[in-house]
């Protein structure tokens, strides 16, 4: 069976400026695909092309093996980055309206809306106006608007920004649930820990180009482990002199060391055991955050 969403060498130009250059990616059924990149990297443009708002200049986008058509609108859900709903209109009125535009009947839409409000434990918002809700709750309503019609392909642009930790967890759980039900999700964010938790495959865009793509685990393996965390009861001297150690930082309960060679880690541990009692020793995997900063540069935020 054809994959739900395939981008093949998609390119988009605005005048002389290239917004997206030769981007390819594939989203499986029941997968959350991470689309990362600094500001202006081309994430939103890519998403808009997937949504059919703008057409690529080159390359093609296939949905279950087919080109874009207006029937696809019913199968897609979108939570834009700068989300918005009608401020002065009741939650029920506008979400049912949006669901009807997605091809649902009013009755189905009402049922689905009630389910989601119940799911988010806010059934009393049914009759409230958007402007009466807090920003975080408005965002939840925006999320409901994106999923109320049970889309097959869901596009989430910065879904968790501006939410408190409790709500982030709630939404994360919901997104995972949707994934497990078979929804293909294209997910963009600046928060790497969310990506590490949710996505298996990612693409990092920088200035309209793909700089990194693949499975998170594979990507991480490509980057050397270069940080060592050491907790000891007393002080350890001469860590700087070990060959392969680049930098030593004194921490509250020990040291954080940057190494250029994994072999140096063993030497560090031996030295530490000689001089003090080791409480904790770890050769850290590079975080996605570090990889991202390395690839995209410090200027991304």
């Amino acid at each position, binding site marked *: 069976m054809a994959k739900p969403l395939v981008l093949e060498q998609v390119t988009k*130009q*605005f*005048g002389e400026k290239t917004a997206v250059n030769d981007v390819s990616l594939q989203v499986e059924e029941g997968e959350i695909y991470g689309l990362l990149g600094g500001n202006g990297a081309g994430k939103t443009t890519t998403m*808009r092309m997937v*949504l*059919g*708002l*703008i*057409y690529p*200049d080159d390359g093609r986008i296939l949905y279950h093996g087919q080109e874009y058509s*207006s029937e696809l*609108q019913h199968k*897609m859900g*979108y939570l*834009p980055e*700068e*989300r*918005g*709903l*009608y*401020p*002065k*209109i009741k939650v029920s*009125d*506008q979400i049912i*309206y*949006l669901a*009807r*535009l*997605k091809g649902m009947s009013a009755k189905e839409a009402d049922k689905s809306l009630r389910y989601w409000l119940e799911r988010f434990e806010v059934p009393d918002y049914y009759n409230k106006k958007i402007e009466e809700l807090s920003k975080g709750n408005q965002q939840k309503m925006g999320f409901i*608007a*994106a999923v109320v019609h049970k889309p097959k392909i869901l596009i989430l642009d910065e879904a968790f920004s501006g939410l408190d930790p409790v709500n982030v967890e709630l939404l994360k759980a919901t997104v995972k649930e949707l994934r497990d039900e078979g929804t293909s999700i294209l997910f963009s964010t600046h928060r790497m820990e969310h990506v590490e938790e949710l996505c298996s495959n990612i693409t990092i865009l920088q200035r309209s180009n793909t700089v990194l793509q693949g499975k998170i685990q594979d990507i991480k393996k490509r980057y050397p482990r270069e940080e060592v965390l050491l907790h000891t009861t007393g002080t350890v001297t001469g860590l700087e002199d070990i060959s392969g150690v680049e930098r030593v930082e004194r921490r509250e309960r020990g040291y954080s060391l940057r190494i250029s060679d994994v072999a140096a880690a063993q030497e560090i541990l031996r030295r530490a055991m000689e001089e003090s009692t080791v409480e904790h020793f770890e050769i850290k995997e590079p975080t996605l955050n570090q990889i991202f900063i390395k690839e995209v540069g410090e200027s991304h935020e």
Partner: protein
Amino acid sequence: MNKLLPVINFTFSNKLKTKSFVVTTIIFAVLLSVGIHLPYIIQLFTGNESTESRIGLVYGSQPEIAESLEAMIAKQPDGKIKFVKYEQANEQALTHDFENGTIKGYLEFGESVGLQFPKVTYTSKKEGMDLTLQSVLQPALENVKMQYVTRGSSLTDEQIAAISAPVVIEEQKTERTAGTGSAADTKEDPKPAVVNYVIVYGLIVLFFMTNTMTGNMIAAEVTSEKSSRIMEILVTSVSPLTQMFGKILGMFLIGLLQIAIFIAVVAANLALPYNQASLAELNLDLSQINLQIVIVGLLFYILGYFLYATLYAAVGSIVSRTEDLGQAVMPITMLSLAAFYIAMFSLSSPNSMLLKVCSYIPFVSPVTALLRFGVGDATLLEVGLSLIILLIAIVFFSWLAAKIYRTGVLLYGKRPTLKELRKAMKAYKI
């Protein structure tokens, strides 16, 4: 297309619930009711006051004239003036009666020299002579003068009556060229009935008002959808064309509802018995309404509305913030204002060259062509041509507006220039 209905429904029902709509409708309804009652209210006030104005009449040296004036006034049907006779101009007695309020003022006649009519002086306390009093006294005195001057001559009473009768200018229009033979030619009235003027006038004002009001509402809706970013969700659900026309139709229904409410208010007010009398006084005969004018008027009204509405929607889609909207819709407002004033100033000369030209220019034709047809001499053929031009313009501008709308809704930031807009259109492949 099955999405058009939800859009219309949503636009309509939500606008209906807004406070601004409810409030403006109520305010207009109240103003209309007051306006209709105005003649009656005025009557009520003035009627009370002048049921009887008592006026002193000093016989003095001209008892003859005074007597015939009294007789003349007595002959008048409404008899609002009562004279109080004074033999002589007795200052004391007159001032006394002034103070008591028995008389409002007094008339005095001067000496007559030869055949000349004596000078007439009206003395009153402060108010001076009010218009109703003057309008009664003036012709009466003129008649008295006529009698006074012709007294003793060989003129018969009939001749005198003929001389004093005012000249009436009757207006009549020559029929249109007999050859065209359209239905409008066989109108029985030589001159359009007053009520048709009223209809044309009313339709023009209505067109201007609803056009500006609903037009601005459409533009504001589009801009607010854009600024609240719900537009991004909407454009992924409905095609911009459906969205735009759904909005325009929804607002149109709102406009129609408002008009229906106003008409109902007017009709209810006019149905009140005491208002019917004042309506009759204004010489309006509802049975004289020319149905053709009403139909053509409504046709132009609807088409004109669509032409302007598409432009308002397009402009609304370009602007990202509501604050910038006023400036952006200015050109359209000016255009409709120009159409309105051309029509208003030409109301008395509906066959001018200016109107003839204007009735074929789409943005001004809805009012000018109606004016020419309603009270001027435009034939159905000319009106049809104007309608066709208008229709073509609507198709063209809807197409253009839809393109602008499609591009505009995704452009944020400052208002784009025409060049930027064209560039964006190309980039979006629209």
